Every structure is written in C-alpha cells, then in structure tokens.
C-alpha cells in the first residue's frame, strides 16, 4: 500500500518534470514555427502587402483562383492556379528534385560501395568525400559559377581540351544549360550526404553472409542484386526521402547561380520574389502555402508508409 502511493507520487513528480522540461522548447517552436506557418496561411487569404500587413483584409480564395466576370457573358480566371510562371516553377522544382535525387542516389551508392571496401588510404578518401558537404551552399554556388564562367571558366577549358565540346558554353546564362548547371552544383554538394547514409546501411550488413555467398561461388553482381541491395534498401529509401524533401525546397543555388530566369525558377524562388521583390505579399504567401502542402503531403505519406518507429520500441 505504502509502496504504491510512493510510486504514484514519484510518477506524478516525473510527469510534472517532463512538462516543465518540455515547455521552453515547445514555446520556442510554437513562436518560430506554428504561429508563423498559421500567419502565412492566413495572409494567403488576404490582400496583405509588405508595408500594410496589419491592414490585411480577408479576400477568400482570390489569390489562388478567382473568376472575374466581364459582364457581357465573358470572363476570365485569375490567381496562382492559372499563373503560367507558377506552373513553370512547379515543373522546374519537380524536375530538379527527380533528376538530382536520382543521380545522387546512384553516385552515393557507388561511393558508399567503394568506401565499404578495405583498401589503402580509405580514411583519407572518406575525408575527401566529405569536403563538398562541408562547403557552404552559397560558396559552392559561387565556386561553380566561376568554374562555369563562359569565357574564363575552367570547365569550358577542360571540356575543350578533352574534345567534349567544340565551343565555349555559357553554362549559367543560357536557358538550355541553366538547369544543368544548378543540377551539377547540387549533385556535387549533396552526394556525400547520400553516400554516408547508404554507407551506414552497408555497414550493418553482416559480413558472414558474403563469406557464405562467396564460398558458394555466387558472382559478385548477383550477390549485390540479391543480398546487398535488398538489405540496404530501407537506408537508401530514408536517404532518398530526406534528399527529396530538401530538393523540393531548393532556393540558395538557384538564387545565386541563375537569378531571374524562367528556366530554373523553383517554387521557393517564385514565392520569395513575390513576397519581397514584387510587393505581392499575399500572392507569395499563397505560393508558400501550396509548397508547404506539397511537402507536408509527402512527409505524411512517408511516415505512414514506413510506419516510422517514433517511440523507439523496435530499436
């Protein structure tokens, strides 16, 4: 009897402590995340402008879609959902995410497989691989912008010497290659992250499986396809989703490397331009809200599909 009351008092104390410990963090998260997100969604239903935020009035779905009747049986739809530049930026974003994450997965897998081997100088190679990841995104963008300079860039010089191209390419300035330029920088910078996550998965594969397979004389490619790949698939998938969510919100590289071109404008760039450069604060908020919904949908699907283990019970 006495024991139970003591225990329940103890657990009550611990419960109080838990909430006391959590509240500062929760308050900060509320002020920097929940409240601003709510305000962004609210602004997207108003006519707010950058200087007259407090006088924002509710306008319904006008920023998203609105039918304006011209009176003579004629009319036209307006709003984000009919904006060709918006849809172009949606397309750019999706295209960028799919292509960059695909390349990063393949390159990351190759690098992870190399790093998983025993060879002379392995730790040195692992250190070298991390360097692109350690370089700030803006610095990477600037470094590559210089390397891709149409006249003095070393990339053109290399490709000319190797005979891969016959004349200098204006990598970042030409609409045909601007997206390629952005992709190169992003793939270069984030492949190390992918490689590390896949390597972590590889190192959890028990070594005796390989020994057994080797003794049975199974060829290496078959071992890879039938044993390694299925075993590391969960790690690869998590890495892919993390990178995809990151890729969908890309801003920095595009903003610095190829400013102001329809060829590379992504959803984040589109939203920020409207918010702060074109004085269409409400319209930009609507774009932000749609981007948030897209990413939220993917996140929720991901958490549900993988039935993520939040309590750590299966660990």
């Amino acid at each position, binding site marked *: 009897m006495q024991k139970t009351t003591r225990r329940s008092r103890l657990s009550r*104390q611990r*419960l109080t*402590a*838990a*909430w006391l*410990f*959590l509240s*500062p*963090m929760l308050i*900060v*998260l509320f002020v*920097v*995340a929940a*409240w*601003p997100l*709510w*305000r*962004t969604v609210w602004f997207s239903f108003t006519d707010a402008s950058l200087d007259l*935020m407090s006088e924002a009035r509710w306008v319904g779905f006008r920023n998203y879609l609105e039918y304006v009747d011209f009176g003579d049986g004629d009319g036209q739809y307006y709003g984000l959902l009919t904006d060709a530049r918006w849809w172009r930026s949606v397309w750019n974003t999706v295209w960028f995410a799919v292509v960059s994450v695909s390349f990063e997965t393949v390159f990351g897998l190759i690098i992870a497989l190399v790093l998983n081997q025993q060879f002379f100088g392995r730790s040195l*190679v692992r*250190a*070298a*691989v*991390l*360097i*692109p990841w*350690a*370089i700030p995104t*803006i*610095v990477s963008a*600037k*470094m590559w912008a*210089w390397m891709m*300079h149409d006249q*003095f*860039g070393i990339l053109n010089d290399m490709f000319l010497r190797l005979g891969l191209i016959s004349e200098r390419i204006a990598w970042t300035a030409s609409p045909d290659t601007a997206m390629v330029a952005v992709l190169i920088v992003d793939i270069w910078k984030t492949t*190390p992250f992918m490689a590390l*996550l896949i*390597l*972590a998965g590889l190192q959890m594969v028990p070594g005796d499986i390989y020994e057994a397979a080797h003794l049975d004389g199974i060829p290496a490619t078959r071992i890879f396809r039938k044993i390694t790949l299925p075993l590391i698939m969960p790690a690869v998938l*998590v*890495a892919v989703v*993390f990178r995809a969510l990151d890729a969908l*919100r890309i*801003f*920095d590289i595009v*903003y610095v490397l190829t400013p102001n071109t329809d060829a590379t404008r992504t959803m*984040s760039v589109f939203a*920020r331009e409207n*918010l*702060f450069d074109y004085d269409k604060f409400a319209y930009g*908020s609507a774009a*932000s809200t749609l*981007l*948030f919904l897209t*990413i*939220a949908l993917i996140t929720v699907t991901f958490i549900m599909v*993988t039935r*993520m283990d*939040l309590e750590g019970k299966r660990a």
Partner: protein
Amino acid sequence: MKRSFLARIGFYVLVAVIIFQAIFPFYYAILTSLESGQALFEVNYLPAALDFSNYRAMLTEGVFDRQILNSVFVASVVVLFSLALAVTAAYALSRINFRLRGLLLLTILSVSMFPQIAVLSGLFEVIRAFGLFNSLWSLVFSYMIFTLPFTVWVLTTFMRNLPVEIEEAAIMDGASALTIVRRVFLPLMWPAMVTTGLLAFIHAWNEFLFALTFLSTDRQRTVPVAIALISGRSEFEIPWGNIMAASVIVTLPLVALVLVFQRKIVSGLTAGAVKG
C-alpha cells in the same frame, strides 16, 4: 576476396575520380584566390602565383571582418540556446513515459521537414513585431526552427540508448529530475552534444534565406549573404579573386572542423536521419 589485377586497377581509377571531383573545385577556388589582375583570366591548373592581395583587400577594406564576427556570433548563440533547450526536452522525451509523447515526437520531426519559405511571411511579421528586423537576434531567433528539432531529435535518440540503471540509482537516492539531468546525464552527454552542436553550428553558419530576408544593411549581414552579394560595377567586372578569397576564408575553418570531427559527424548525421 581476391580480385583480378584489372579489377584492382579499375577500382583505384574509380577512387582517383572520386577524390578528384570532391576536392578539385575547392582547390581551384584557392588557386584563383591567389591570383590577381590579368592572371585571373588565364586558366591555370597549377599555382602560378602566390599573391595574397585578394585576402588583404577582403580583410582590410569594407566590412567583411565584421560580417565574419556576425556569423560567429549568430551560429554560437544559436548552438548554445538550442542545446540548453534540447537537453531537458530530450530527457523528458526519452526517459519519462507520458501520453502525447509519440505525438510530440511526430510534431518535432515534421517541423524539421518544414520548408523555410512556408514560415517566411509569418516570421517576417513576428520579427517586425518584436522590433528585431535588421538585428542579428532575428537570425538567432529564426534559426531555432531548424536547429531545435534537430538537436532534440538526435539527443533523444542518444539518451534512449543509455542504460536505465544509471538513472534508477539516482531516483532511489531521491534525486530530482533536474539533478538527474545535471549530475547523471550531462556528463554522459558531452560527445553527443559536441556532435549535434557542431552540426547545428555548420547549419547556422551556412543559412542563406533568412539572413537574406531579415537583414538589410551590409554591416549586419552574415558571410553567405555577403559573398552572394559581392559584385562589381558591371557584369564584366565581377571581382572573382575577392569572391574566391572570401569563400576560402569562410570555408577553411569548416573543412578543418569536419575533417577533425569526421567520425562524430557521420554518426550524428545518420542518427539524425536514419534512426526513426
């Protein structure tokens, strides 16, 4: 496993390609930063000069030195605040059973996946309301949105794996929760805190979108924005030598940190991403 001679050659060629692509751009940035004048416009593969005038120009003319201090200040304070808030929160989330715990963890995970742009307009309003616009505190404040969920998440994962026995003894002795965190867990947490702190520092050091939006004068800017905005009088006069010198200055400490803490960083990254 024995490999054939040819396969081994192929393997080392692959290793060489990997090393080359990883380090060449940074090597070339250093090379460029040491050139000035006409030499800048000739493509060199090996160092042709050792001219530190770009570095001198960046560090003595203008406000770049001040901007470096801004970045150091913001990133350090962000790390201190997030670690302080995260340690106690992680203790509650990993050690105490209560309803809503799963939901809270889910919320924290979702916040770490937020697109920054989704909170930009709302955050802009909050920062103006607090009178923080164009103050470094606006960044300290807004960076919490990505450093806090991350540090809480990783520290929770780490604490969960510590044995229960350590804590039970302390509870038997009647220690309060705060004492347990301070006396029992904190000493064990240092490795994890160094790793998460370092990753949060790097993230804050590199952040661009908020710094671009919430600061409006040169003197207040952090280094990524400063580097992005270095420009010449025209498109044809971009001072590439200066830009590369500035890039090397802000990157070298990071590369050094990453190489020194390599192993810890890798485990921190995987704990943050893989272990759900």
